[in-house]
């Protein structure tokens, strides 16, 4: 199958029913998106599909053919959200962070000046077992100010 990932056309040899996350990690070596719950409920595997944050762990490949997929690698490491997360020392173990970054990037693309409650609502689907949520919210607000 052909996928458009981070602006490039990529071929993967996988059944169309394979979840996108498995193709990203195992076929394309894009291991920044994490496996968390495996059932679309924790946000660790979020990628952007046509600009919207979507869980990739249970998203069949056939449903994303021809759509623009952006992973954490596609942000280049210097996105304002990433810099703000570092500045706020938001991450603890960091496992959930790539999914949080993708949700925050989608939020700031649609809303340049979100309120605290809008940030919390946008990140509602991202679980962090370390309890870093408040630092993450501060970081996203910082990114909005600096963007």
């Amino acid at each position, binding site marked *: 199958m052909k996928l458009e990932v981070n602006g490039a056309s990529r071929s993967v040899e996988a059944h169309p029913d*394979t979840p996108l996350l*498995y193709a990203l990690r195992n076929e394309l070596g894009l291991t920044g998106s994490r*496996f968390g719950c*495996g059932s679309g409920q924790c946000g660790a595997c979020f990628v952007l599909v046509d600009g919207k944050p979507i869980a990739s762990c249970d998203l*069949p490949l056939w449903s994303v053919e021809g759509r623009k997929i952006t992973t954490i690698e596609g942000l280049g490491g210097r996105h304002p959200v990433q810099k703000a997360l570092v500045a706020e020392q938001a991450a603890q173990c960091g496992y959930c962070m790539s999914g949080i970054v993708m949700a925050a990037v989608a939020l700031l693309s649609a809303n340049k000046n979100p309120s605290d409650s809008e940030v919390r609502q946008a990140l509602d689907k991202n679980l962090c077992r370390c309890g870093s949520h408040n630092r993450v919210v501060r970081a996203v607000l910082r990114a909005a100010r600096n963007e």
Partner: protein
Amino acid sequence: MTSEGILALEDKRFAAMMARDFKALDALVHDDLVYTHSHGGGDTKASWLDAMRSGKTHYRRIVAGERTARLYGDTALVSGKVDFEVESAGQMRALKLVYLDVWAKTPQGWKFVAWQSTPRPA
């Protein structure tokens, strides 16, 4: 009953789920079914079949992987891998699972009585 016979019943159940053959499912499923989904939610026989009947859950494709069936008297345990493509509340989901399920011998034949699955990591 043999291990192969239990796996054949399992395949029959998977086929009935995909075909939404509720007559076959009713015959294969024990009234005491405990169905624990990979997300932790649970169903009884009635609620599991109702979810399929109503269209809330539609198992579009089921591909069984490596499996082992073990018999202990009137009980059989199946452990293995399975891939589901399921439409759940209008959203297509592709699930790669490992599972353990239980079949029990009853006067009406062998019945599917328990299911427990968990996602396989990417």
